[in-house]
C-alpha cells in the first residue's frame, strides 16, 4: 500500500435477489480479502444447510438471528484493500427497515452501488435506492446491471436499462453516474474485464472504484470548524494554552486567518494549529486538530469557528428533509433534542409540508403522519439558532439528528434544504 492511498466508503443497495451478497463476496474473494478460516466457516454452514457449493452470501451475515433466518437485520461494515485504495463497504439489508438502514449507510458514503437485475430492468426498488442516494447526496452513483449472463450478455438489454434509468432519474439530483454491465456470479466486469461483453468500453467495477476522483467530495470552500472540547493543559510547558479541539468539517483554515466565532460573533485571528507531531500552517477537512486564537474569547462546545468572510446562516426555523427512524411516530408538538455538528438544542416539528411516496416519488400533502422509514419535508423550530448550511453544499453542517428525551433514542435524521 502506498502512503498517499485514499479511503473510499461505499454503500451497496439491493437485495439478495439482485445478487448483492454475491457481488460483495466476489469483490472480497477476488481481492483476496476473505481469510481461509472465514471461508471454511462459510463452507461448513453451506453444507449443513444443504446448499450447492459455497454460499458467499453467508459471509455478509453477522448475527445469530440473521444466519438462522437468512436475512440481514442491520448495517454491516466490510473492509478490503487493494494496492490502490482502502475500501469500507456499508452493507445495508434489502428488506427489513430498509430506508432507515440505507440512509445510515449512505450518510458517510463517497459512492453507492445500485444493483439492477438485467432481466427485470428498473423496478420500484431501483427508484427507491436511487432516490435515497440522491437525497443523501452520495457524490458518485454506480449502477451495476447484474446477471448479464442471463440475458446473453446483450448490449441491447444493457442499453434498455440505461434508458429506463435515465428517464426517471432526470428528476433526481445526481452529479456523477456510471453504468457497468456485470455478472457477479461469474465475475464479469467485477474485478476482471469480461470477455463476454466486448461491446462495453468502460472499466470494470473495481477499477472504477479504485480510480474515481474523490478528493473533491468534501467541500473545500466553506471553512467550518465545530468545536468539540477545550484543551487546557495547565502544565509547566503549556501554562496558558487554550486550544479548541475539533475536526475541520469543510474548507481550509490557515494561521493568520480572520475568523468569527458563531453564534457569539466575536472575531479574532488564528494563532496556531496544533497536533502532537507538529504545528501546522494550515488544516483542511477532515483533519482533527487543536486551534488557538490570538484573543481570549469565550468559546465552548457547540460553537463554530468560521472564516469571517464566509459565514453560515444562523437560523431557528429550518426546513429539512426528514427521515423518521423509530417505531414510535412523533407526537404532536413534541420537543426533541436536536444535534447539529457538536451543538445540541431543543426542537419541535412545526409543520409537515409533504410526505414523499417512496414508490412513486410523488409528494403527498394529504397524509402527513410520520411513520418509521417515512421521508418528508418538514419545518423545524429550534430554541436557539443553529449555524446551518444547505445539505447539498455541506454534508456535515447541513445535517441534523433528533433524539427523543424520553428514551434517549435517535428517532430521525434530517438534511437541511
Amino acid at each position, binding site marked *: *500500500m502506498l*502512503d498517499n492511498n*485514499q*479511503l473510499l466508503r461505499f454503500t451497496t443497495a439491493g437485495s439478495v435477489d439482485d445478487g448483492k451478497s454475491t457481488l460483495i463476496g466476489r469483490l472480497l474473494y477476488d481481492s483476496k480479502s476473505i*481469510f481461509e*478460516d*472465514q471461508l471454511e466457516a462459510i463452507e461448513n*454452514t453451506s453444507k449443513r444447510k444443504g446448499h450447492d457449493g459455497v454460499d458467499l452470501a453467508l459471509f455478509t*451475515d*453477522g*448475527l*445469530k*438471528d440473521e*444466519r438462522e433466518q437468512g436475512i440481514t*437485520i*442491520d448495517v454491516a*461494515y*466490510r*473492509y478490503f*484493500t487493494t494496492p490502490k*485504495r*482502502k475500501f*469500507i463497504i456499508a452493507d445495508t439489508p434489502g428488506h427489513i427497515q430498509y430506508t432507515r*438502514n440505507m*440512509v*445510515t449507510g449512505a*450518510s*458517510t458514503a463517497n459512492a453507492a452501488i445500485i444493483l439492477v437485475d438485467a432481466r427485470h430492468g428498473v423496478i420500484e426498488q431501483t427508484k427507491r435506492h436511487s432516490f435515497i442516494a440522491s437525497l443523501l447526496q452520495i457524490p458518485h452513483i454506480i449502477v451495476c446491471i447484474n446477471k448479464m449472463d442471463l440475458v446473453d450478455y446483450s448490449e441491447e438489454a444493457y442499453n434498455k436499462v440505461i434508458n429506463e434509468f435515465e428517464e426517471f432519474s432526470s428528476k433526481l439530483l445526481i452529479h456523477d453516474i456510471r453504468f457497468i454491465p456485470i455478472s457477479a456470479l461469474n465475475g464479469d466486469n467485477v474485478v476482471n474485464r469480461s470477455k463476454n461483453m466486448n461491446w462495453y468500453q468502460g472499466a470494470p467495477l473495481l477499477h472504477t472504484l479504485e480510480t474515481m476522483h*474523490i478528493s473533491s467530495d*468534501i467541500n*473545500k470552500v466553506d471553512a467550518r470548524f465545530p468545536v*468539540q*472540547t477545550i*484543551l*487546557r493543559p*495547565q*502544565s509547566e510547558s*503549556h501554562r496558558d494554552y487554550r*486550544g479548541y*479541539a*475539533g*475536526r475541520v468539517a469543510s474548507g*481550509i483554515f490557515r494561521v493568520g486567518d480572520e475568523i468569527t466565532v458563531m453564534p457569539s460573533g466575536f472575531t479574532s485571528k488564528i494563532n496556531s494549529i496544533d*497536533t*502532537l507531531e507538529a504545528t501546522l500552517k*494550515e488544516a483542511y477537512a*477532515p*483533519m*482533527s486538530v*487543536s486551534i488557538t486564537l490570538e484573543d481570549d474569547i469565550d468559546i465552548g462546545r457547540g460553537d463554530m469557528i468560521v472564516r469571517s468572510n464566509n459565514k453560515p446562516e444562523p437560523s431557528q426555523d429550518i426546513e429539512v428533509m426528514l427521515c423518521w427512524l423509530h417505531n414510535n411516530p412523533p407526537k404532536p408538538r413534541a420537543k426533541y433534542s436536536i*444535534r*447539529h*455538528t457538536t451543538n445540541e438544542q431543543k426542537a419541535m416539528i412545526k409543520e409537515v409540508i409533504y410526505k414523499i411516496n417512496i414508490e412513486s416519488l410523488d409528494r403527498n400533502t394529504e397524509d402527513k403522519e410520520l411513520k418509521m422509514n417515512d421521508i418528508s419535508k418538514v419545518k423545524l423550530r429550534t430554541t436557539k439558532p443553529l449555524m446551518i448550511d444547505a445539505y447539498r453544499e455541506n454534508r*456535515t453542517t447541513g*445535517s*441534523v*439528528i433528533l433524539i427523543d428525551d424520553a428514551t434517549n*433514542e*435517535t428517532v430521525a*435524521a434530517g438534511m437541511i434544504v
Partner: protein
Amino acid sequence: MSKYYLNYLDELESEAIFILREVWAQFDNPVILFSGGKDSILVTHLAKKAFYPAKIPFPLMHVDTGHNFPETIQFRDDIIKDLGAQLIVGSVQESIDDGRVAEEKGKNATRNALQITTLLDAIESNKIDCAIGGGRRDEEKARAKERFFSHRDDFGQWDPKNQRPELWNIFNGKHFEGEHFRAFPISNWTEMDVWNYIKRENIAIPSLYYAHEREVVWRQDSWIPNSEFLVLEDHEEIVTKKIRFRTLGDITITGGIESDADTLEKIANEVSGMRQTERGNRSDDKRSESAMEDRKRQGYF
C-alpha cells in the same frame, strides 16, 4: 503545493481522534479498557494525540484475569508511568474470592467468560459511563455490526437488534443513570491498518508480538505457551520454538504462530500475507459460531 486530502491512515487517525474527543465531551466518567494488546495500545496512543498538549483526561482500566503474560503487566505499568495516567484494575481473582463467579472446570477451562462479571462490577463500582475499547469491525462477524457509540443497558447488556442508528459524524451518547456505553474509536481499522500505523508511528508494543524463543505446546492448531496454569495432557509435550503472538489475551488461551518476524517491518509483511484471521488462534472464539456475539450480549468487551 498541498494536496488537500488525507491518506487512509491519516483519515482513520482523524476519525478516531474525533470519536475520543466526543467521548470526553459527552460522558462524565470514561475509561480506556486497556488489555496490553496492540489494539488498546493503539487507542491509548490516539488518545494521547486527541488531547495533546493536555494529558489523557481519564483513567485506563485493566481487567486482570490473573492469567497474564508477565511481559504484558510490565508493559502496562511502564505505559501508565510514562503517561502519568491513573490505572483502575478489576481483578477476576477477587471476583472469584468474593463468590461473584465460579472458576470453570475441565481441561479447556479459562477465565475468559469470568471477565464479564469483573468488568461490569468495575464499571458499576467506579461509576463509569463509557468504556472505550479497541474492538474492530473486521475482527469478528458480531463486531461487524457494532456502532462507534454502543449502548449497554443497566445490566450491561448489548441488544444488537435494537441499536441506535449512527448517521454522518453525529454520535448519540445520551443515557440514563446506571446505563453505560462502549465506544470503539478504531472500528474502521483492519489488522493490516493497525500494523501499518504502528510501524509508521513506531509505537512501542510488548515483546510478545515479536518473534522470540519460547516454551510451547501444540494444542488446538496453535502453539500455547507454557505457564504455571498449563496442565499437560498425556500425549502433549513441551518444546521450544521461535514464535510470536498475533493477538494477546490470557496466557492460557492465546496461541502463537511460528515466525521469524522480529521487526515491525517484518511483522507488517508477515500479516499482509496471512491467510487466517487473527482470532483464528484464540480458543475463546472457537467454542461456537456465535461465541463472540453471545459474550458481547452479556457485556463482554
